[in-house]
């Protein structure tokens, strides 16, 4: 057994026994010649691995902000009532264990939960009751689970659609036969393709760097760890067009000379595994994967799937690589690009699902076709996942340059007020910005739009985000680990209604410190929305702040501070004779 196989090994134990025992850890540690604590460190990093026995059915209820607004609390209560278990507790019931989890990529069908990774969507208390009853009766999960497919709500006119058009396996790849890797790379470069995970790094530049690398082995990794709350566009692409994504990876391999590819699939998307595996098999059968692909001598490439285990930070490319190596998903220091020093030290290309799909379409449709669509800087279309207070949540393929107003109209948003672009680590916009365009020149978007209407509490939104980052930080660097906790305390203050104008100024200052000093993107962007919201929704926060006395202090709430004492004394009084 290799270290790189650690996650799979742990999954084996988790699936077989419902938890990873002391014994299992000792066994694995011995095989890998490492100390037990090292294995425990890996196990405890991923929240789908358990150290104590769980029930036959592990229920993960999504606690993202979308879920919260769609009735998370009622569903949580319903699950607890029906199963008699408590969320986050072990050893209660041989049948059920309940846990909260961050976004599971079903934001268009919230509230949603995973039961042994089978999706259950649009939950109601009534539905929960039925599900639990069915499980108690021994019904098969496969038959009672929901269909997690997201509805494709909008496509551009046919001559402008890029992703969701007819797909035929292999026709793109045939073009590789008549072109050298350099020529293919030039096409990608000419189409100005940029990373669609949200960083928008020029893809051709990345691929060229790996191509030019003297690394003896090279790898291609497809980042399908779509953890940003509110995002589910990669899920939709893998569900509908897994072949296209794989072709993109093959193209990248053709250019760089990589022989092995990985799809790092988040465990929340296990329901897609079968589909992707089938596609891979078809590719192999058709000589589109394997050795001498398409008859091109020495063009060998194979793809494996790695299942994640529940860690948002693994969406960060260097953390993903660490995870793939069987380690804790801690972001590396930014000394090298992965194309210089990646998986096991070899040159590695890591790209988002959509980037690979787009690359394949560029080769298929040609750069001329692509260049007629979109804006000057952003070419082509963008797949968006839209959710929240809209009548039509789901997948939207839009031409770059569409205005926010048009989008809100398309998805039939009702009194939109607070719009979150690119998830919690992205940015928020207010009503005055609805004329802004989704494109690189104006409002760049990684793929998620969450719409919140006038009646949603902004404090609640921000509290949810901060709690999320607090838990999902990898914990390596001080500002991200401690800073997000500190910001969470501030939000609690806003909630309690004891926040002063000084507190708001401090949030801005502290947010800036966290942004400047954090080690990876997680920390650098975690305070973004919070800080931004203070300015963009100034009116709202002005109503939230409390008046201070002449010394700038809030009157100390003595009653609240002695509440614990009073009730304890009351409880411990001798009974009246």
């Amino acid at each position, binding site marked *: 057994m290799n270290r790189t196989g650690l996650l799979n090994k742990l999954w084996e134990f988790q699936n077989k026994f419902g938890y990873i025992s002391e014994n299992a850890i000792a066994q694995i540690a011995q095989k890998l010649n*490492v100390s037990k604590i090292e294995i425990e460190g890996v196990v405890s990093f991923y929240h789908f691995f358990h150290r104590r026995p769980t029930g036959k059915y592990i229920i993960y209820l999504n606690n993202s902000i979308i879920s919260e607004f769609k009735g998370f609390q009622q569903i949580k209560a319903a699950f607890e009532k029906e199963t008699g278990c408590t969320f986050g507790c072990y050893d209660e019931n041989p049948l059920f264990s309940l846990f909260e989890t961050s976004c599971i990529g079903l934001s268009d069908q919230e509230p949603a939960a995973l039961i042994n990774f089978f999706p259950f969507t649009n939950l109601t208390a009534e539905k929960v009751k039925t599900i639990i009853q069915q499980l108690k009766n021994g019904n098969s999960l496969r038959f009672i689970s929901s269909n997690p497919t997201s509805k494709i709500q909008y496509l551009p006119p046919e001559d402008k659609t890029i992703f969701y058009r007819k797909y035929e396996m292999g026709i793109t790849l045939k073009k590789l036969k008549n072109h050298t890797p350099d020529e293919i790379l030039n096409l990608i470069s000419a189409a100005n393709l940029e990373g669609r995970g949200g960083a928008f790094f020029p893809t051709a530049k990345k691929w060229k760097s790996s191509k030019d690398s003297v690394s003896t082995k090279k790898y291609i990794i497809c980042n399908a760890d779509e953890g940003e709350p509110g995002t589910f566009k990669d899920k939709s692409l893998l569900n509908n067009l897994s072949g296209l994504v794989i072709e993109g990876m093959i193209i990248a391999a053709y250019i760089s000379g990589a022989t092995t590819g990985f799809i790092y699939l988040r465990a929340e998307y296990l329901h897609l595994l079968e589909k992707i595996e089938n596609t891979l098999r078809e590719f192999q059968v058709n000589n589109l994967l394997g050795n001498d692909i398409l008859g091109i001598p020495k063009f060998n490439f194979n793809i494996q799937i790695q299942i994640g285990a529940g860690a948002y930070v693994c969406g960060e490319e260097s953390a993903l690589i660490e995870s793939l190596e069987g380690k804790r998903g801690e972001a590396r*220091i930014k000394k090298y690009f992965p194309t210089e020093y990646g998986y096991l030290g070899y040159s590695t290309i890591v790209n988002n699902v959509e980037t690979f799909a787009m690359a394949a379409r560029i080769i298929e449709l040609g750069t001329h076709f692509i260049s007629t669509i979109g804006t000057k800087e952003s070419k082509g279309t963008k797949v968006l996942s839209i959710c929240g207070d809209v009548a039509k949540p789901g997948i939207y393929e839009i031409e770059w340059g569409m205005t926010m107003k048009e989008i809100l109209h398309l998805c039939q948003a009702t009194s939109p007020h607070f719009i979150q672009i690119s998830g919690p680590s992205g940015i928020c916009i207010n009503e005055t910005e609805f004329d802004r365009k989704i494109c690189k020149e104006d409002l760049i978007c990684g793929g998620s739009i969450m719409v919140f209407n006038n009646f949603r509490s902004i404090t609640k939104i921000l509290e949810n985000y901060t709690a999320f980052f607090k838990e999902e*930080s990898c*914990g390596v660097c001080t500002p991200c680990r401690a800073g997000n906790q*500190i910001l969470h305390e501030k939000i609690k203050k806003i909630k309690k209604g004891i926040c002063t104008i000084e507190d708001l100024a401090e949030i801005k200052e502290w947010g800036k410190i966290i942004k400047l000093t954090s080690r990876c993107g997680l920390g650098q962007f975690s305070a973004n929305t919070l800080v931004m919201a203070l300015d963009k929704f100034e009116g709202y926060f002005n109503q939230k702040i409390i008046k201070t006395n002449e010394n700038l*202090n809030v009157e100390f709430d003595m009653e*609240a501070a002695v509440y614990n004492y009073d009730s304890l004394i009351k409880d411990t009084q001798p009974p009246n004779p």
Partner: protein
Amino acid sequence: MKTSSFKIDGRVCTAETGLNLIEAAKQNGVFIPTLCHFKHLDPLGTCRVCTVKLNSRDVAGCTVRVADGMEIEVNTPELLDTRKAIIEMMFVEGNHFCPSCEKSGDCPMQNLGYETGIKFTRFPHLFIDRITDARPERIVVNQNRCIKCKRCIEEVKTFDGYNIFYSINKGNKTMVSIDYEQEAKLSELQAAHAMHICPTGAILVKGKSFSKPFGDRKFDAIIEEKTMSLNPVKKHRTTTKKKIVATTSLAGCFGCHMSMLDVDLGILDLFEVIEFNKSPITDIKNFSKHCDIGLIEGGCCNTHNIEVLREFRKNCDILVSVGECAIWGGLPAMRNTFPLEACLKESYLDSMTSEENETIIPNHEDIPKILNKVYANHEIVKIDHHIPGCPPDSSHIWNVVKNILFQEEYSIAYPKYKYD
């Protein structure tokens, strides 16, 4: 050897190409503070204290290798404050009770607190309950003090190459845990090494730390001439009259008052220019005059403390928190990591001396009520200045007072500026 020429804060520097910036800066006489960087360890980049600007982008200095033409900023006001903020974050994230720490005086993190002039933290203390693990054979790991720098993880291994320390959990629950089995293989020397590379007092060798002071308090040895700079303080209006001083001890031990009296005969000089009003020193119980300055020892742990503090705010122009307890709760705040109920039950119902089946927690309407936690004074009223120390040195206290009241020049010798 190839050398590179680069600029630090506009000054041209040279060093071996590819050298770690921390070392390169040191060779050129520029000190970049850091806690995780350690000799040969490949940059860990965990503590972020060494944040600098490289070509106007913020990076951790320890991850930079110097090359020709680099423009590096180290000591701009913004960066100095950022660095200070990160150390403050460490202080509030853990539970750093310097006065009761074995490593106090020998602790690089504490020393950086002095270097960056931290008097109080801008962030609220989080007071999270953390364990002290005494199960290992040779060492004790105190999670209250760990800053997760990872030095021990990378540096301390058994002879056959096994890790002894490793991070577990993630997010705010991340901590550095220990492998008991491997730890038992440590030699005495290795254990001592682990203790010494820890930049705080999180790793201690059993039997070493108390038998005799294990550190020779290396940060005390710094030359006397070096003085601490004082942040701008609100000055008091000048008058020719005698200034009036009030003092009190809230949730404190009167140690700070003892320290005030440590000025010895100097107090006679003080009486020439000041008079005491409400103070334990004069035993005046109630304010009879409006005071120029109030010195508060101790934080607020009960309702009476709050009332007294409010009264002081009302009756004093300038209010100064004296000592650790007043600044952030100090030792009494050790209870802040537990619920009040647990504390009171432990003291009155389940303690070794309580009667069997005791059910009553002593209370009376004349006894002040205990607050849910110990509060720092600046959480209750506005505090104009903070004097750290447990207790602060007598000269420190009176220097500040004289500076505020008479605009006398403030200087405090470096070794007198302490958290313990």
